[in-house]
Every structure is written in C-alpha cells, then in structure tokens.
C-alpha cells in the first residue's frame, strides 16, 4: 500500500447558508485548523460552483488511500442528502481516514462521531436564523 501523507483541504465556490467566504480566507481557516490540530495540510481542492455538483469531493474520496484524511472548510459543504453523506462517512472511515470541518471544529474519526455532525446539519435544516 502506498504511504499515506497529510490531510487534503476542501473548499468551495458556492455560498454556504447564504454567506460567501472568499476562497483564500477558507484556506486560511483550514491551514490554521491544521496547524492547531497538528495535521499536515495539503493544498485544497475547490468544489464546483454549479449547484449539486460534488465531482471534486468524489475525486478526494478516490484519493483517500493516499491520505490521512480530509479537512472541509465547513461541514455544510457536504451533500444535503443524508444517505449520501452517510456513504461518505463510511467511505472515509473504511479507508482508515478522518474527516474534519474547520469552521465548526468538529471531526469524524469513528462511527461514534457521526451523530454530533448529523445533529448540527439537522438543526440547521429546521432552525431559523434571524
């Protein structure tokens, strides 16, 4: 098996929860998170701006055998469909990797961590922001 190295950043061009963050700022947030968590940061990939496209995320999942994990800018970058998200979590864990979200400072390193992430996503779906 090839030697694994580092955590690949994952940033986006689509607004998240109605807000836009410049891509270089997303990278700063990820780089700072990686430094504080003592993770080796690898240059981020940028998800497509087209709504509903996760082609770049799929490429990163294919790259997992060569990585220690992924660092998303935000957990809200994951697909809105829960079934698809759970497939992603399973694949990350099956490959022996972990999945981090820099803004929320949360990580999935085992199946026990999935519930907390899904709670955030579920509440966000229903709760109103003034």
């Amino acid at each position, binding site marked *: 098996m090839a030697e694994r190295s580092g955590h690949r950043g994952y940033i986006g*061009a689509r607004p998240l929860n109605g807000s*836009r963050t410049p891509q270089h700022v997303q990278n700063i947030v990820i780089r700072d998170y990686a430094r504080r968590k003592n993770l080796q940061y690898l240059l981020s990939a940028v998800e497509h701006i087209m709504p509903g496209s996760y082609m770049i995320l799929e490429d990163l999942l294919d790259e997992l055998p060569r990585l220690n994990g992924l660092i998303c800018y935000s957990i809200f970058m994951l697909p809105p469909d829960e079934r698809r998200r759970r497939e992603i979590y399973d694949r990350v864990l099956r490959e022996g990797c972990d999945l981090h979200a820099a803004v929320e400072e949360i990580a999935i390193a085992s199946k026990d961590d999935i519930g907390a992430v899904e709670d955030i996503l579920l509440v966000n779906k229903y709760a109103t922001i003034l």
Partner: protein
Amino acid sequence: MTDTAFLQPDEQGLADRFMSEGFVTRAADDRAGLDRIQRRAAELAADYLRLPHANDPYDLLETIHSRVTPDKLNGLRMHVIGGLNAEPWLRPTYFRLARSTIEAIVGNELCMQRRVNLSIQLPADDSSLLATHSDVWSGDSPFEVVVWVPLVDVFRTKSMFLLPPQLNGEMQDRMASLRSAEELYKTIKPHLVWIDIPYGHVMVFNQTLMHGNRVNEEKGTRWSMNCRFKSIMSPYADKRFGEFFEPISLRPATRIGMRYKLPGGFNG
C-alpha cells in the same frame, strides 16, 4: 488591409486563432523581463535548498527533481512564489510579457489577479496534479483569460492540456452524468491538445475550456506561472474585484465617467 476594417490584420488573426483554438502562444514581449523572473525564481529555489546561486537558472530549475523530494516540494513552491510576489516589479513585468496579446484578446482597460501562481511538477510525481477543470467552475468569471508562462521548455506531459472549443460545449453537456473529475478526464482524453511551448514564449488561453495536467512523464521538471486578467468593467463571479483582482490600467475616460454627476436641482 481594407480601409473598412477596425482592427489591424495581426490583431484580427490573433483573435481568430484564440476563438478557434482556445489559446495563442507567442514570443514574450519583454524577453529580458522573463529572464529576470526566471533568474529570481532560481535564486529563491537555491536559497530554500541552501545551494549557491546558479550561473544557469534554466538548468537549476529543470533539474530541481534531483535536489528535492515530492514531500518537500510544496515548501519549496511556497518559498519561491512568496518571494516572487514580494518583488514590486513582478506583476508589472509579468503583464509586459504578454501585453500585446492581452490587449488584443481582452482589451486595454484591465484588472489583474493580485497574486501570480506557480506550479512545479517533478517527473513522475502525482502529488501536485490539477484535475480536469474550467476555472469558471471554481468561481472565476467567464470574461477572464489566463496568461500561462513556462520557465523551462514544456511539451507533452510536461505541459498542460486543453479541450478545443469545438468540443467543450458537448462535453459540458455530459458532465452531470459523470461521477468525478477523473471520469471527466477519461471521457475527454481522446480529444485533448497538449500544448508545446519553448522557454521564451507565453500562452494566453481561454480558461472556460476544460484543461489540466497529468503526471509529468518527461525527464525535466516543469515550472510554470499563471495569472488571470480581465476587462475591468466586465462581470465578476466569485473571484471578486479588490480581494482577487486589482485594476492595472484604469483609463481617464472611465475615471471621469465614474465620478460624473448630471446637473440637478430642476423643478420643472
């Protein structure tokens, strides 16, 4: 030339080539400026690797794979591009490399990306590849062009690929049925054009077309720089004015127009 044409024949020829092929390559307008950039890149690389400054910057850059491993490459790249961008002459010089082509393709009232980028691809290294993409898909405006400048000769897999304009729309229409950018590459692979560019030349290309690179299977290391230009008043996408682009040639008529106010106070 007929007296009914607005553009000079060479300008029109350049525009026609750009539209039909998606790119143009030409000798750098400012060869001394290109050599200065190459020399400074080699000095910064030597500093990072604690080597003496080379008499032959081309050779140092092209053989850098004998002195750096893939796991140390990003540190080297960051050091070199950070040092280059810190030079106040870099961006004006970079613009001058392709000024005549940019002005023919884009216009003469321009904004330029605030930071010039650098790619280094060691032979056989799969750690710094750029998946098949169009810059527009990651937030660039379709009104931008990329000025791509190799610091060594580039050819075949040591260069980059581009999907010709005639096929780009058809392939975009098929994208949503594909799973990943790698699948997209496999779909477009038979149609791709690999662009050979000798050192001393620059390329301006249409970044709305699919492009990218693969593992460099040639003997030398690729060093290339890229930077985006667009007409100041054309529409912006996610890469915004101010944070990503800054004006480099705002003309007096536009300055006057932006400040002009019609006389007011009429009551009739």
